C-alpha cells in the first residue's frame, strides 16, 4: 500500500498531492508539466518534500514533522526512467546484476531466469547498452529494476521515448509484469489509452494537484 501526502515547491511550480492506493498498478495521469515526474521523484526519495509524509506498506519513508527522510538507496523502491539510464560501461548482464550486488542480496538464478524470460532479454546479456535498440534498452531497464527486488516499482513514461511500433512491442511485457511479477507499480503516463491497458487505479494530476482518483473509469472525460 502506498500513502502519499506531500507538498513541494519547485521554483514557480507548486506540487501538492495526497492519495492512497492499494492497486497493483496505480496510474499517475496528467498532461506534461502536471508534476507527475516530480511526484514520483519525491516517492523515490530523489526529492525531499517540503512538508508531508510518504509510507509504503506501513513503513514511513518521509515524514517532515518527525524529521524522517529515508535516502533513495534504502527505500527499496525500483525506478524505471523514461530514458532507461543503463550504465554505459557495463554490459546487460552486469546492468541486470547491479541492484543485487549493491543490496548484497544472495544470487538468485531462478528469479533472474524468470525476469529475463518475462522480458525476452536473455539473448542480449553480453551486449553494451550502446548496441541495444530503444525497446531493448527499456526492457533491460525494467529487468534491472525488478532484479533489485523492490517492494514498489515506479515507471516514468516507460514508453515515452519509443515510437508507436515499439510501444506496441513493449506494452504486452508491462501487462505480463503486472500479472506475474507481483510488485505493485506506480505508472506515469500522459496517454489515457496506455493507462487503460495497464493501470488498475488512476490518480489524475493537474497543475500539481490531484483532481480525481478512482478506477480506470476516471480516464473517460465526463460529459458536460
Amino acid at each position, binding site marked *: 500500500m502506498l500513502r502519499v501526502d506531500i507538498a513541494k515547491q519547485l521554483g514557480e511550480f507548486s506540487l501538492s498531492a495526497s492519495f492512497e492506493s492499494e492497486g497493483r498498478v496505480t496510474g499517475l495521469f496528467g498532461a506534461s508539466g502536471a508534476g507527475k515526474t516530480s511526484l514520483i521523484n519525491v516517492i*523515490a*526519495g*530523489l526529492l525531499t518534500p517540503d512538508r508531508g509524509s510518504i509510507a509504503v506498506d506501513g513503513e514511513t519513508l518521509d515524514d517532515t514533522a518527525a524529521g524522517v527522510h529515508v*535516502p*533513495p*538507496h*534504502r*527505500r*527499496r*523502491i*525500483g*525506478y524505471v*526512467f523514461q*530514458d532507461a*539510464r543503463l*550504465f*554505459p*560501461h557495463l554490459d546487460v548482464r552486469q546492468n541486470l546484476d*547491479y*541492484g543485487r550486488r*549493491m*543490496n548484497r542480496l544472495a544470487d538468485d538464478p531462478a528469479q533472474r531466469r524468470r525476469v529475463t524470460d518475462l522480458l525476452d532479454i536473455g539473448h542480449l546479456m553480453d*551486449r*553494451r547498452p*550502446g*548496441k541495444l535498440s530503444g525497446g531493448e534498452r527499456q526492457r533491460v531497464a525494467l529487468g*534491472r*529494476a525488478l532484479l*533489485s527486488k523492490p517492494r514498489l516499482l515506479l515507471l516514468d513514461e516507460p514508453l515515452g521515448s519509443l515510437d508507436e511500433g515499439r510501444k506496441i512491442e513493449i506494452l504486452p511485457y508491462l501487462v505480463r509484469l503486472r500479472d506475474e511479477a507481483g510488485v505493485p507499480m506506480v505508472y506515469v503516463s500522459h496517454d489515457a489509452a496506455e493507462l487503460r491497458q495497464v493501470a488498475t487505479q488512476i490518480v489524475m494530476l493537474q497543475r500539481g494537484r490531484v483532481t480525481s482518483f478512482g478506477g480506470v473509469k476516471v480516464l473517460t472525460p465526463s460529459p458536460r
Partner: protein
Amino acid sequence: MFEISPTEWTAVLLSLRVAVIATLVATPFGIALAWLLARRQFWGKSVLDAAVHLPLVLPPVVTGYLLLLTFGKRGLVGQWLADHLGIVFAFRWTGAALACGVMAFPLLVRPIRLSIEAVDRRLEQAAETLGAAPWQVFATVTLPLALPGILAGMVLGFAKAIGEFGATITFVSNIPGETQTISSAIYSLIQTPDGDTAALRLVIVSMVIAMGALMASEWFARRALLRLHGN
C-alpha cells in the same frame, strides 16, 4: 657520447622515482578534491578552488620557499612530522616528491574535475534507486565513467612532476644522489665547464621519457574510451 655515467643514471632514476611517487600519492587526493569541487556546494569553495590553482600561478621559487617554511626542519608542519611520525622532507628525495606533487596538483585535478562534471548525474540517481549508497555510486558509476579524465590528469601531473625545477631546488636543494633530479643535474652540468655533452645526454633521456609518457597516455586513453563506449 652515449655512455651514460653512474651519476647521470642516479639522477634519471631519482627523477622517475620522485615523479612516480608524487603522481601516485597525489592522485587519490586529487580525485577527492576534484569530486568535492565538481559535486558539492560548500562555504569557501571558491577559496579552495583558487588555493588549488595557486602553484600554477605563483613563481615556483615562491612555492618552494613556502614549502621550506612549512615542511622544513623548523617548519610548523615539518617539525611536528619529524618529532611524531619520523617523516623528514627537508633535503631528502621525499621533499622533492612533495614539491613535485604540489606543483603538479593543479594540473592533475583539473581534467579529473572536468570528467567528473561530465558524468551524467541521472546515471548516479539510477544507481541510488537500485540500492547503491553514495560511496558505492562513486565507486561503481562516477569513478569508472571518469576514468579517461583521471588518466589524463595523472599523465599531465607526471609530466609536470618530472620536469619540475624551481620549487624542488628551492625546497630541497641540489644534492647528487638525494635530491638531484634530471632538471637540476642538467642545470649543474651547464654551469660546469665541459659539462655540455653530459647535459645533452640527459636532455635526450628526458625527451625519451616525455615521449614515452605521452604515448602511454594516448594508449591508456584509447583503451579507457573503448571500455566505456565500445562493445
